Every structure is written in C-alpha cells, then in structure tokens.
C-alpha cells in the first residue's frame, strides 16, 4: 500500500472533479491548480523531480495564470458558469468524451503494464543533465521539430488576434 501515491492520486481525482463541477470560474481554475500540484507530487514520487518542477513552473505557474488572466478579463466577479453548465448538449458531449478518454487510458494502462516491469532506475535518472542529453543529443531533431511547430502556432495566434498587422 503506497500511501503517498494514494493520497495524491485521490487528491488529483477529487480536484479534477471539482474543476468540472465548480459553479464559478476561478474556483474551477483553483481546482485545476490542485490537480497540477498533486500530479507534480506524483512525479516527485516517481523520481522525476525535473518533470515535477516543470509541471509546477509551466503548467501551474504560466499556463494556468494566463487562463486565470483571461477569466479575469472576460468575466465579472459575480458571474457564474451555471448557464454554460446547464447546457445539456455540452454535458452530453462532455460525458461522451470523458468515457472515450477513460477507455483510452484503460487500454493504454494495460498496454504499458504488459511491456513494462519493475526495474531499477538508471543512475542519475531525472537529472537535468540527463534531460539535456536526451533533448539535445539523442532526440535533437524531434525537439527542434516540435519547437518549430510551436513557433508556427505562435505566429498563427498572433495573426489571428491582431486586427491590423
């Protein structure tokens, strides 16, 4: 019985449920923050401190803040999500997508458990230097391709938002 795992796993699931159930936008975002942080704790538990830090710094520290920023810009403090949540078609499609996701995760879990067995971690697992080696030596091409993709997305986003170029 891995107590650490169960605590943070159940926390992330509960916070995830809260995220989709909350009636106000900002508490919902806080639920998402909790999910991120408990996931980061799980990564720590899996001896991947760098991933955990990235999870906090990038997802919780940057992306979610931008989400919150947009919420603050677009909504008034008293405004609630009830109207959106009451929409049956949204709920239905959400449920459907959720089912599909669960199915996918189950299949994936089985596949992973078929091929992976418990084994000792290599020396220096999860170190920044090891990450650097992987990124900039073994998988340099993939890394660069992904970053070009992000750059394209960035330019596209600017093009879409900017009214007058």
């Amino acid at each position: 019985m891995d107590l650490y795992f169960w605590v943070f796993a159940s926390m992330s699931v509960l916070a995830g449920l809260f995220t989709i159930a909350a009636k106000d936008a900002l508490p919902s975002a806080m639920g998402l923050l909790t999910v991120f942080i408990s996931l980061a704790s799980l990564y720590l538990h899996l001896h991947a401190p760098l991933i955990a830090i990235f999870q906090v710094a990038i997802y919780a520290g940057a992306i979610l803040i931008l989400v919150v920023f947009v919420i603050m810009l677009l909504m008034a403090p008293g405004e609630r999500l009830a109207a959106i949540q009451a929409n049956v078609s949204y709920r239905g499609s959400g449920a459907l997508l959720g089912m599909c996701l669960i199915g996918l995760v189950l299949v994936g879990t089985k596949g992973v458990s078929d091929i992976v067995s418990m084994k000792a971690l290599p020396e220096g697992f999860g170190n920044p230097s090891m990450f650097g080696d992987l990124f900039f030596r073994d998988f340099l091409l993939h890394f660069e391709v992904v970053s070009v993709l992000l750059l394209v997305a960035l330019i596209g986003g600017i093009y879409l938002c900017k009214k007058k170029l």
Partner: protein
Amino acid sequence: MDDWLIAIIKVVGIWVWVLLIAVVMTWVERRGAALIQDRPGPNRAGPFGLFQPLADGIKLFTKEEIIPTNAQKLLYIMGPLLFSLPAFSAYAVVPFGDKIILGGKEIILQVSDVNVGFLYILAIGSMGVYGVILGGWGSNNKYSILGGLRSTAQMVSYEVPLGLALLGIVFVYGTFSLRDISLAQQGTFLGFLPNWGIFKQPLGFILFIVAAYAEANRVPFDLPEAESEIVSGYHTEYGSMRLGLYLFGEYVNLVTISGIIVALYFGSWHMPYIDLGAYLGPISWGIVSFCIFFLKVSFFLWMFVWVRWTLPRFRYDQVMGLGWRGLIPLALFNIFITALFIQLTV
C-alpha cells in the same frame, strides 16, 4: 533517525529565522524610511521602537476579521494563504551557510540541496501570484481586480527575464544546485576578481535584480498595490491577520530574494580574497559562514528599503514595455554572449 532530527531542526530553525528577519524587516522598513525622510519614525515601543513589529502583530491578530458581504468567501479566505505559503516554502533550497560538523556528522547549512533548486525557486515563485489573484478577485472590488490584473500581467512578464537571467548563471557554473554554485564562488579569477557571480554575469545580475524587484512587487514596480491609483490594489478589502499575511509574505519574499542574490551573485558565504574556512574550526566556520551570509543578505534587504523610498513608481504600460522590450532582449543577449564565451574558452 538522526537525519530526520537534523532535517526537522533545519526546517524549523530556518523557518523561524526567516520569519524573525521578516519581522525585523517591518521595523527596518519604517525606521529606514524615517531615516531617509528626515523624521523620527516609530520610536515609542521599546528601545528605538524595536517592539513596534510586536505591537503591530498584536494589533493585526486582535482586530476583527471582516469578510465583505459580496466577497466570494472561499477565494477571499484562500488568497492570503496562497500568497504566504509559497513565500514561506521558497527558502527551502537557498543555503544559509557552508556546513557544520557536529559529532563527526557533516551537516550542510541548507534545508535541501536538490539538484533542481533553481527551478524550484522559479516554480514556487510563480505560485505566489495566485494569492494575489484570488485576493483581488474574491474581494469583489474593482480596485482589487485592477490590482490582481496588474499583478498577473507583471508577474508573468517578469518571470521570463528572471529565468533567462538565471540561465546565465547556470551556464557559468554548470549546475542547478544553489550549494554547488555557492561552493564554486570561492577564490579569484583573472588574478584579482573574486570568483563571484556578479563579476562573471554583471548584466545578468542587473537583469535579475530588476526582475526580482518586479516579482516582489516592490517600488518602483509596486503597481499591484499602488496606493495613490488603486487604493491598495489586491488587498484593499483585507484587514486583520489576513492583511498581515499578505504584508508578512511580502517581507519573507524579500528575504528569499536577497538570499538568492547573495547565493548566486555575491559569493554566498565566501569572503573575497580570503578563505576563512581554512583557518577556522568546523563548528566556528559554520557559524561564521552563517553570519557572513546574513550580513550580505541584510545589505540587500536594506537596498529594498533604500530603493523604495527613493524612486517613483512606473506606470503599467511602462512596466510591460520595460519587461518585454527591455529586459527580455537584454537577457537573450546576455545568454548569447555567455554561451559564446563559454564555447570559446572551454
């Protein structure tokens, strides 16, 4: 069991110590302001008004807690907690001395020497903004929301130059661990310059200190709480100890930032040109290194006060312009130069 005990002592000890500095900082801030502004300052409670923070604390604790009627209670209550929690936990990876040898056991004076210490600071630092946002949003006050918005934009913008400036240090010392960086700052290079971060990364230091002031919401970047414009920004509606947590968290942040500055750029616990560790016994060197470290920290704490009472405040668009058009290109340039230099010399 020994390791656990030492860890707990270190955690509790440094926590109390940082809190104590933060408390004294509130006094230094007010007396420093008075010194700069040619007036007495708080001088009634105790000698030199030293008990003033205590009196303030009692006042804040005993005041009635008021939650505005239309506030969103959950967010309103969570705000100060989420602000002070990251502030209190950020110091965990910052060293506060070299090491001490007790009973044959080597104890490093740092709560946790993790190899991602740097990133931990960045990650935790970015968490603090949630407290500001929640406080600003939950108060249901337009000034608070403006303060929250300003703070969000400012923190997000200045985290980029902050991280980029730190990257230069990582390039130079080749590690993410603050202790390793501290250790590497001993001795001299080029024959006469101390091996300190500031001499190896002068531009990076300026960028870092500017971005750090912005992250700490200090003058000249105190827009989220600009008194004359948006009353008190995100903590307009707060009172009693909730306000106290915000104010206190701010000072704890200052201690942490000063600690980082000293650890990264000002030779940590090293004296320039002289290696005291070689002359002193292990225990006394531990204590002396602790003292040296905090002497340097207190200088930077004083600098926060000094700058606060000297400079006017930026305007919102100017802060954004400085961040995106000034600091980020400079930081990228700094990284480029550093990388080039390392490539050519190593």
